[in-house]
């Protein structure tokens, strides 16, 4: 093979690789059905010697991918669709919970321990992470087991904190019990949901990864005693509203990302809204001494998002094309 033909073959290989990458715009099921056919046409339509498909082919494949994804999502039954959104909502809430517990984690020699839970904060983190991972890998039994372990660990931690200085005041036991209501119900709901519905799309998982990633970085910053970085990551990774801002930065990022996602799928926004509800509800149930939200704020925060969600759902359903007779 001479150098020119080797270069030509290399160019064709490069073009095919790039065209294949471009086809990822389509949903996996559609790609499996039509990917090779579209690839063939895309390569035929590209003039010889080019390393990239033509600009208008790139744009049209991207737009076609968005359309195909929207169509695939709208084809799902409403109940399945909402159950998958509920799984993501609970997973995001559990990641927020995991963040909270990780934030309390301290080992001897680390920065000062304001709460005094120490290393025991790690106990619910592992089963919470396993529960979320198992929900995504479609293992309902593992979800049930790890949810039970997480419930036990959260219960242990809640009652262990009663023995800490200042932890056994009036109503402390009631407060500890009510703080467990939302997490335990969420874990139970996740167990039931994963038994009855197929696992949600993997592409949603990075929303959960983002929330946990921020807190893992925060723990690392705490370990390295990087005060300002830890403080910045703590305020970024907090789920609940803080004084002067309706949503925490992380919640705002998740709402923003899921708003962009509306182009193809409304479920991530439903899930993010659901997880915000759960988080705020959990804070409220933890008692009046809990940080952040009161009932008035709860309604103020969630009313616009609820109205927006209902509108989005209605618009998307109406936009779903019932096959017309002419195009």
């Amino acid at each position: 093979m001479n150098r020119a033909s080797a270069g030509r073959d290399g160019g064709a290989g490069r073009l095919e690789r790039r065209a294949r990458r471009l086809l990822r715009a389509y949903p996996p099921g559609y790609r499996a059905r039509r990917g090779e056919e579209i690839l063939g046409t895309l390569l035929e339509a590209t003039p010889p010697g080019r390393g990239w498909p033509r600009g208008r082919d790139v744009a049209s494949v991207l737009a076609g991918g968005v359309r195909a994804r929207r169509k695939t999502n709208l084809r799902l039954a409403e109940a399945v669709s909402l159950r998958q959104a509920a799984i993501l909502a609970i997973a995001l809430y559990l990641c927020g919970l995991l963040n909270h517990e990780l934030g309390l984690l301290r080992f001897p020699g680390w920065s000062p321990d304001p709460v005094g839970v120490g290393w025991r904060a790690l106990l619910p983190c592992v089963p919470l992470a396993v529960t979320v991972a198992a929900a995504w890998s479609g293992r309902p039994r593992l979800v049930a087991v790890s949810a039970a372990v997480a419930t036990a660990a959260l219960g242990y931690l809640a009652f262990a904190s009663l023995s800490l200085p200042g932890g056994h005041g009036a109503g402390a036991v009631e407060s500890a019990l009510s703080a467990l209501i939302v997490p335990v119900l969420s874990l139970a709901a996740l167990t039931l949901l994963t038994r009855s519905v197929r696992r949600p799309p993997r592409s949603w998982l990075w929303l959960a990864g983002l929330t946990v990633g921020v807190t893992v970085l925060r723990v690392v910053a705490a370990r390295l005693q990087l005060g300002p970085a830890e403080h910045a990551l703590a305020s970024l990774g907090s789920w609940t509203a803080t004084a002067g801002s309706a949503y925490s930065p992380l919640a705002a990022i998740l709402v923003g990302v899921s708003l962009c996602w509306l182009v193809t799928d409304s479920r991530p926004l439903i899930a993010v809204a659901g997880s915000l509800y759960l988080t705020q509800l959990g804070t409220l149930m933890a008692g009046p001494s809990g940080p952040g939200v009161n009932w008035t704020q709860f309604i103020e925060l969630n009313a616009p998002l609820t109205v927006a969600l209902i509108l989005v759902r209605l618009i998307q359903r109406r936009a779903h094309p019932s096959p017309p007779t002419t195009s």
Partner: protein
Amino acid sequence: MREPTYFVLAALLGGPLHGYAIMKRAGELSGGRVRLATGTLYTALDRLTDEGHIRLVGEETVAGRVRRTYGLTKGGSAALRAEARRMAEAARLVTDREPAPTGGRLAGKLRTT
């Protein structure tokens, strides 16, 4: 019916074609005006298949890749002809009428008085 859809159906009047051949034929029939991009073509093919205007008529493997050919259905052919008639009638509204003389009716009236 939009112009690209019309030319996709028109391209299949001569017999079944595969994706790239439909793109080329639509371009030729429209005198180069309709230049279908790959993504647009497959979105149109999906929609037309769902609507029952075209159907898959064959499948072969070329250079290790699936190549499918599509043909018009009776419904597709009827829809294409109905659209062609509608456009012809619309065109006749313009081509069958003599343009009014410059100045219009008022000028004609003034000339007769």
